[in-house]
């Protein structure tokens, strides 16, 4: 309600005209958004990259542009799919730009007809026109535009092709004259429902039709708080449904499909000859989802990541940064300069053992940044290639064992980039149960990019077999924890459906800008924490609290985990940022303060240990304070227990690597 009022005020003042981008998943809405606003947003080749609204001022138009997450069907299946619908319902929308896949006209137009019902001024953009062309589709744009009654543009957003045409179209959005007549029983029910709906900004008929198509729970979501209306509307839906055999949605869709088929007959032709299709893409497609070769390919990819991130970035590059750039070029003159400062406390604060520069900055920029950038780079390539949806296919069965389905692969894999981000992306999951289990797994043991990079770097020094063992241990624990959680929260595992986008050759420009964007975001986000953490250690050391704290943690750290007392400092830092602990241990190992077994145990505990403050906050925000704190508490307790058991077991078996 507040939103509606706010929008009304905005309208009165004539402040901003909102242009809302809607469309099916993975059609390039975000790329179009970037094109219109000049703002950078992350774009990838898998459905579900965008889970939140982003908005910005259009550079060449008098619009405020709003980007929404993709909608699979006309009926929302998860929180993130609901976002687009709610935006249309409550925002003051001046026009809607539907972005569609040009080679998939049937699917695009099915959504168009649902949007036509809203009565909002529309523009249709058929994106990825190059792919449609290669496949041999010819679309008669002007004819389609005449039939629909509003402008139709064609673009290749990744190359900026068709931008002018799109801008022109956006200057003259129009309401469509198309009015579809549905089955008389549907029409009657829609009319009755419309009478019970409060005022919205779009046609009540459109909302009524959506409610008739959806599961009853949508009525509660949209009419939340209006008990009487909820009940009446549900009654109308149930009564109408009892009069017909097929689902009501089917009746609605039949009418729309008939209209779509007519439009397609009029406006789309298939050019002669077989459409172009890359042989490599076809082959890769079959390999990557093959029950056996797909697994081989997955391990191949993991190995390449290990070599590139672990051996090359965290090894060669980090050594170079630490020894040459920091050790020889940067630090000596700085230390020289600082030595002129008369106060020893000040000197120590900057370049002492817990110095801002010698510890905070060096760890952040010298160790973490090169590693994390390398990881972001390979990650971006994976994202843009279209491999991630295939990974869902491969891992669906394993995930179903822990009460999730293939869809959860996306948030979990994103967790290897950043846990904070990943917890937000759990919104694409359909049930609360799945979101809780996915969050638990993320919090418990998915190392984020910097951590992962440093783990790979550390094990590149310890050995490959311990690395494999480490991930086997970790996976077993995650599967066990997930399995237990799925028993703890009983409920059905939702069925898995997803679409597989075609393989695309990642564009160098997009890869570079995505990697730079993420690295930049990382520096901005992380450096302050590194400085604060270092300052805390410095203060604790100065006031003598550090030895006390260490003594407090000694029974656990030294007694149970057999680690040197100094590792406690690492765990204290772990409460701030996970990568800080990782960098700290990496550094300690490099200085010979940890032996191989200790490094193994320390890394395991750190990986299982609570996530950083940022993701803890996000977990609490997304899952609620009760569940959030329960997850964090469990994870902390579990990390210590598991670390102890592994430590004793390995020592008992005399495995020291």
């Amino acid at each position, binding site marked *: 309600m507040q939103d509606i009022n706010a929008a009304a005020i905005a309208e009165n003042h004539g402040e901003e005209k909102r242009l809302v981008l809607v469309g099916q998943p993975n059609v390039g809405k975000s790329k179009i958004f970037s094109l219109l606003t000049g703002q950078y947003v992350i774009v990838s080749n898998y459905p579900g990259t965008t889970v939140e609204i982003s908005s910005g001022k259009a550079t060449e138009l008098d619009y405020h542009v709003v980007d929404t997450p993709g909608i699979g*069907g006309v009926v929302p299946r998860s929180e993130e799919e609901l976002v687009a619908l709610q935006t249309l319902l409550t925002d003051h929308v001046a026009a809607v730009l539907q972005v569609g896949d040009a080679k998939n006209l049937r699917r695009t137009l099915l959504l168009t007809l649902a949007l036509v019902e809203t009565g909002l001024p529309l523009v249709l953009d058929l994106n990825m026109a190059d792919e449609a062309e290669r496949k041999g589709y010819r679309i008669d744009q002007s004819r389609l535009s005449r039939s629909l009654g509003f402008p139709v543009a064609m673009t290749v957003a990744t190359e900026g092709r068709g931008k002018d045409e799109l801008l022109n179209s956006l200057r003259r959005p129009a309401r469509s004259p198309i009015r579809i007549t549905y089955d008389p029983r549907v029409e009657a029910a829609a009319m009755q429902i419309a009478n019970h709906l409060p005022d919205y900004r779009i046609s009540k008929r459109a909302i009524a039709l959506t409610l008739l198509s959806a*599961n009853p729970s949508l009525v509660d979501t949209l009419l939340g708080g209006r008990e009487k209306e909820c009940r009446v509307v549900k009654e109308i839906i149930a009564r109408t449904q009892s009069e017909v055999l097929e*689902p009501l949605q089917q009746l609605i869709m039949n009418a729309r499909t008939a209209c779509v088929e007519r439009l397609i007959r009029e406006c789309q032709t298939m050019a002669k000859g077989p459409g172009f*299709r890359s042989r490599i893409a076809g082959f890769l497609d079959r390999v990557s989802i093959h029950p056996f070769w797909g697994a081989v390919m997955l391990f191949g990819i993991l190995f390449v990541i290990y070599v590139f991130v672990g051996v090359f970035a965290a090894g060669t590059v980090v050594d170079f940064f630490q020894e040459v750039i920091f050790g020889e070029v940067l630090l000596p003159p700085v230390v020289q300069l600082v030595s002129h400062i008369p106060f020893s406390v000040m000197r120590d604060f900057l370049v002492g053992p817990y110095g801002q520069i010698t510890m905070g900055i060096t760890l952040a920029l010298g160790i973490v940044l090169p590693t994390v950038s390398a990881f972001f780079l390979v990650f971006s390539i994976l994202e843009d290639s279209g491999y991630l*949806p295939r990974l869902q*296919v491969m891992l*669906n069965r394993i995930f179903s064992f822990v009460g999730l389905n293939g869809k959860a692969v996306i948030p979990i894999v994103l967790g290897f980039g950043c846990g904070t981000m990943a917890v937000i992306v759990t919104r694409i999951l359909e049930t609360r149960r799945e979101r809780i289990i996915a969050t638990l797994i993320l919090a418990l043991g998915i190392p984020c990019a910097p951590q992962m990079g440093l783990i790979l770097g550390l094990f590149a020094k310890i050995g490959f077999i311990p690395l494999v063992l480490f991930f086997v241990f970790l996976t077993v624990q995650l599967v066990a924890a997930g399995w237990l959680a799925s028993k703890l929260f009983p409920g059905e595992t939702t069925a*898995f459906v997803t679409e597989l986008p075609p393989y695309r050759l990642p564009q160098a420009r997009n890869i570079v800008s995505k990697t730079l964007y993420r690295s930049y975001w990382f520096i901005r986000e992380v450096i302050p924490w590194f400085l604060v953490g270092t300052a805390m250690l410095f203060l604790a050391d100065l006031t003598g609290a550090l030895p006390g704290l260490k003594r407090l943690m000694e029974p656990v750290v030294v007694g149970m985990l057999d680690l040197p007392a100094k590792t406690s400092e690492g765990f204290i830092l772990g409460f701030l940022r996970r990568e800080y602990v990782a960098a700290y241990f990496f550094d300690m190992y490099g200085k010979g303060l940890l032996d191989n077994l200790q490094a193994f145990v320390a890394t395991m505990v750190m990986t299982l240990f609570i996530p950083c403050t940022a993701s803890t906050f996000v977990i609490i925000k997304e899952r609620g304070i009760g569940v959030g704190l329960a997850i964090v508490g469990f994870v902390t307790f579990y990390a210590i227990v598991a670390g102890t058991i592994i430590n004793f077991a390995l020592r008992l078996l005399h495995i020291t690597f």
Partner: protein
Amino acid sequence: MEETCKPCTAEEREEILEEIWTTLELDRITPQPGSRIGLAKLGNGQRLSPLIQGGDIRTEADQAVLTEQGYQKAKEVVRNHRLSERLLHDVLNLQSEEMERSACRYEHMLDTEAADSICILLGHPRTCPHGKSIPPGECCDAGETSLRPLVVPLTELDSGEDATVAYVGTRDNGRLSYLTSLGVVTGRPVQLVQKRPSFIVKVDENSVAFDESIAREIFVRPALRRRSRDRGGPRWRLRWGGGR
């Protein structure tokens, strides 16, 4: 037990005709128009009068003679009954008592077309579960050449097989709308690419992946009846080149 149904008034005539048919079979006589049966075997003569009046049988001395009309009727009822048994037994997996009870009701309800559909569906069975022969219908004579396509869940297709969507049998509206949007709708051609580790189907320009629980909800008409017995197991060799 067998095929003796308690006659209910409306269907009494059909029941008696059925009884005549089975009695003839017991005597190892193949029922035909003009087949004769001793009246003594049919018990109370009173109940035969509606049949005589209706022209299904006539009496000659102490025997009842089946007319052409009566023969056709009897044949249909028996065919309905035994086909129903097959259906209930083989497809719906009912136990014999339940099967019997339902078959006794179905035999009166099925028309020729419905019976033929069941017959095709079951592949023109020749005997009922008790081993008695099922009178063939018109569909059986034409059967070898003009089998109508069968509707099967997607799980029954082989990898690489083409089919047309018959219907999507889900009551979850979110899922239905997503599948509709992806083009998995009645009448649309689809190709099953593989079954493991997940089902993958090509529709238009979309590749759709889903798990078995959804594959079981999608019913299709296979384009050609398969010959090979490749049950969708992994094919180790990978073809090089474009996908279609």
